[in-house]
């Protein structure tokens, strides 16, 4: 199967995502420049981390208008699996593919560390190989990951079971101390109502090899391979 990794000017985790798909999992992977509109027959689209368009104005604000995003919207509308990682998640929020917005971390710091997230939902293409309550140790690297949405939106996300990952303690408890950045309801990742578009702030693609300190991120890639194989 083929992973398309979108590269915006300022993306800097596109190579990490490409390596996870191609070298670690042995799948096809293609870089797609943000001005291109051909997704090259992708089965999965990844919006990688980084600082698209310098993060000027707001994170993801201008990437949303890159030509490739029209193709990504169409791919998502057809039910294709789309994963937004970190800055890619911010792009999905700005593009309206996922609800809500990001504020500055409550620490006001750019935080670069390993955190724990608990898998809340396993009926998405990126978590179907997980079990509910599974705790993943994955890195974060962001200054604006403090998830915000109005209370009615949060209530709808909870009612529809769209919160896919929450910041947790290593043993899976959802506490304020484990909340890496101040996100409402410890939200680390979400899916859309159709469940094919998933975004998360932590970096699973940087946690796919033991030399990187954790292999816990692999399960997201294994999940989508399973999802595509069964589609």
């Amino acid at each position: 199967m083929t992973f398309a990794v979108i590269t915006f000017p300022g993306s800097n985790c596109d190579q990490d995502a490409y390596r996870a798909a191609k070298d670690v999992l042995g799948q096809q992977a293609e870089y797609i420049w943000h001005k291109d509109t051909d997704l090259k027959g992708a089965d999965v689209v990844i919006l990688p981390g980084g600082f698209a368009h310098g993060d000027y104005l707001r994170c993801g604000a201008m990437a949303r208008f890159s030509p490739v995003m029209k193709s990504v919207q169409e791919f998502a509308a057809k039910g294709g699996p789309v994963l937004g990682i970190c800055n890619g998640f911010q792009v999905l929020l700005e593009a309206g593919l996922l609800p809500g917005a990001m504020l500055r971390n409550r620490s006001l710091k750019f935080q670069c560390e390993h955190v724990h997230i608990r898998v809340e939902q396993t009926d998405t293409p990126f978590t179907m190989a997980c079990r509910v309550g599974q705790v993943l140790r994955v890195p974060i690297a962001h200054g604006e990951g403090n998830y915000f949405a109005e209370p009615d939106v949060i209530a709808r996300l909870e009612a529809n079971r769209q919160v896919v990952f929450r910041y947790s303690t290593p043993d899976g408890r959802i506490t304020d101390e484990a909340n890496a950045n101040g996100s409402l309801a410890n939200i680390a990742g979400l899916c859309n109502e159709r469940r094919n578009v998933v975004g998360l702030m932590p970096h699973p693609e940087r946690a796919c090899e033991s030399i990187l300190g954790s292999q816990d991120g692999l399960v997201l890639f294994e999940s989508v391979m399973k999802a595509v194989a069964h589609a």
Partner: protein
Amino acid sequence: MRARVFVTLKPSVFDPQGRTIAEALHSMGYGGVEDVRQGKYFELDLATNEAAQAKALAAEVADRLLANPVIESYRIEIES
């Protein structure tokens, strides 16, 4: 014609930067500054001399790009 666009976080949204600035001012002795909200300011040079047209164009670009309606609101002033 020039339009000035002021973008601020909506009142319902916590502003960690504004809060930190307020706390810094308090520690400097400015207890009279009760709260601070940080925002963004844009100057748009527009190819029109018609105020209504200028305002409509500024509002359109604010809606589409300058502000994120999920967390921000904006105010426009037209410079004559």
